[in-house]
């Protein structure tokens, strides 16, 4: 620094400049330190927020990953259940009878008393028993050992979400119910295994029976539709704009519009889909296919922009070399430029799809927030998607859905991280440096 000034300036100003530099050195170093400090503070703040978010999700959500079960010996009474009547039969009565064996002091002929016992088991218990007997009718007349979920209030009690020290009138489960639960626990009938229902069952109004299967399958079909439409169309548009289109006002205009389209709020696309796809074309409401079409509209600009950037990054020398040995323009694009740009294109596509996976507003508008107790079998069956399922559960009054909402968010975050990890992997594995 001082050498430079020696060459360029006379003795007077030289002294002045070095003085000025020396004097300001401390101040400038301090400023740099401030800047660094601010940067670190910003990152710490962001990390703290992220940590709080994840921590609050995990601390409420982890309860949903286990589910309290009870193991009962059930006598499949031939008087209640007969082979000719299957799948109908008195399965709830049979279950009640085996609960009554555990609590001989309760008179089950009184309806209100009987309810106290039958409400310990989940409403789904009778259907589990039914499915088991239907698949093996020889069980009729025998005693089977059945492990079924407990209903939500007892599940909450087992997980200490219903605190025993709160006054009785503020609890969903009264003292007598707690005593019954403890009796079952003392006999070793209570277990708390992993809650596979959360992933294998479709939605239910009973938290202990509700699962994400319908939402996962719905999201899968929607994303597949979205990918099949937005990927080829997006690449086609980008290749044309980048490699073939003459630079003109029209192409500038198109470019600006594509960039703007990427910033349009998603709810607008939802309204568009409601009016055009469902209103005009008469496509079914709540179908993942329509959801996928809507998401494709949103994802396409992202893919176009990513593809154009990837195409731009391919050095002109490759195009020129190919043209030099006599390749046609179209051969250059499809045999040289596009394969080289593919890692970048795929990265952009996956990030676009990850965005689409988390998108809620347009799906709400096309009715993908319906309550359906079975998973869809194809893209035209009505279904929910992961984010809309979270929306439904967050709005449900039953307490068990509080932890299930957080658990569903964790599942969604898991998928997002997985997709982004693939994008990073593709980039680091296949990206070429020139």
């Amino acid at each position, binding site marked *: 620094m001082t050498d430079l000034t020696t060459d360029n300036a006379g003795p007077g100003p030289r002294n002045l400049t070095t003085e000025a530099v020396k004097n300001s050195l401390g101040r400038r170093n301090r400023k740099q330190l401030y800047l660094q400090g601010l940067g670190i503070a910003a990152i710490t703040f962001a990390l703290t927020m992220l940590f709080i978010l994840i921590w609050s999700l995990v601390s409420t959500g982890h309860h949903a990953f286990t589910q309290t079960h009870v193991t009962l010996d059930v006598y499949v009474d031939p008087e209640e259940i007969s082979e000719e009547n299957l799948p*109908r039969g008195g399965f709830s009565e049979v279950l009640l009878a085996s609960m009554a064996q555990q609590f001989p002091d309760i008179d089950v002929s009184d*309806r*209100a008393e009987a*309810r106290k016992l039958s409400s310990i088991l989940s409403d*789904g218990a009778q*259907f589990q028993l039914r499915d088991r007997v239907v698949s093996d009718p020889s069980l009729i007349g025998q005693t089977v050992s059945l492990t079924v979920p407990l209903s939500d209030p007892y599940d909450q009690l087992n997980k200490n979400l*219903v605190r025993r020290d*709160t006054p009785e009138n*503020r*609890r*969903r489960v009264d003292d007598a119910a707690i005593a019954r639960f403890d009796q079952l626990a003392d006999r070793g009938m209570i277990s708390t295994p992993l809650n596979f229902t959360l992933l294998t069952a*479709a939605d*239910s*109004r*009973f938290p202990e029976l509700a699962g994400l299967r319908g939402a996962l399958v719905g999201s899968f079909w929607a994303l597949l*539709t979205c990918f*099949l*439409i937005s*990927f*080829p169309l997006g*690449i*086609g548009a980008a290749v044309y704009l980048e490699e073939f289109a003459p630079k003109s006002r029209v192409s500038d205009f198109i470019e600006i519009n594509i960039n703007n389209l990427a910033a349009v709020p998603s709810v607008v696309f939802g309204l568009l889909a409601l009016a055009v796809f*469902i209103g005009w*074309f*008469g*496509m*079914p*409401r*709540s179908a993942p*296919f329509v959801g996928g079409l809507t998401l494709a509209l949103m994802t396409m600009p992202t893919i176009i922009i990513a593809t154009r950037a990837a195409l731009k990054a391919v050095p002109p020398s490759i195009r020129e070399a190919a043209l030099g040995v006599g390749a046609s323009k179209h051969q250059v694009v*499809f045999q040289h430029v596009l394969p080289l740009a593919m890692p970048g294109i795929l990265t952009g596509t996956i990030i676009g799809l990850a965005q689409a996976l988390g998108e809620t507003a347009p799906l709400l508008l096309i*009715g993908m*927030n*319906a*309550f*359906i*107790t*079975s998973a869809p079998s*194809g*893209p*035209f069956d*009505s279904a929910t998607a992961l984010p809309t399922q979270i929306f439904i559960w*967050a*709005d*449900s*009054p*039953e*307490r068990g859905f*509080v932890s299930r909402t957080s658990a569903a968010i964790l599942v969604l975050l898991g998928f997002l991280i997985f997709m982004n990890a693939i994008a990073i992997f593709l980039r680091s594995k296949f990206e070429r440096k020139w």
Partner: protein
Amino acid sequence: MSVTKITTSAIAIVALTATAAAAREEIRRVGSSTVFPYTQAVAERFANTTEFPSPIVESTGTGGGMQIFCGGIGESFADITGASRAMKASEYQMCQDNGVTSITEAQIGSDGLSLAVSVESPHDWDLTLGQIFLALAAEVPVDGEWAANPYTNWSEIDASLPDVEIEVLGPPPTSGTRDAFVELAMHAGCEELEYVQNGGFDGDWVEENCSRMRTDGPFIEAGENDNLIVQRLQSDPTALGIFGYSFVYENLDTLAGVKIAGTTPSLETIGDGSYPVSRPLFFYIKNAHRGVIPGFEEFLTEYMSEDALAPGGYLNERGLVTLSEERRDELRERVANSVPMEAPAD
């Protein structure tokens, strides 16, 4: 290259089948979010006990449901809509205009609207509808004049009330709960006021002047998500929230219903009408779809069964306030014979 070709042709095929694959197998229900949990319960029961595919139960709000329901006859229009108020004349007309001529109206029971506080609340709340109106309306009588609401503290309205700031969280105007609250609590409260009784005002005047909620702070529109209101109430024990009673019922460990004129909201007091703020819940059946959509009759039978509707039935357990036995029998009769409703009067 070939990959692109295959994908484009795949899209073409999918797009073609999209319009063909419309034959609907399952029952489709739209409408009120208040009736939603009950239809949900019936739908799950129905899917579990029959061979028919699970019904699709969507919560669109009463008005939004009417739009879809009255859109026409055919697979893309819903079979049933739930409503937390009776169908309006304009909606009935819309149905008629679109060819939905035969509709059966079914009242399944009623739902109370309840003000609730956190169980941590230090005060024992007992309000009259008049006091609720004075606390929440945009304009109230002040010294014999109809003027902007000056009250900021409950004790300013009546010395017997707690000396805390008025803070009430409620649903936004798009909600059926809000409509019902304005009609059942605010209008009734307005009519209780001496100023209104002595002034000789009629129902139109009340509707015009007593329908606006205040927007200067004490009444807070908290969105459609009731769970959020519960969280706010828990952190602020002096605040009140407006809920459908079925929601309070599910959350009795965190919420306590506020007494109105000495009556605590409960399934009993709402059922016998002694709790003043309750509303009927309806659903409307599109008769043209009966016998066309598979399982529709069986679904209605399940909905109308004693297991569902009677006291102690599974809808009652979800917080529905049930009808009397004669009214249930009459309802079952009407639904079974698909008796069409008459045009509403208003």
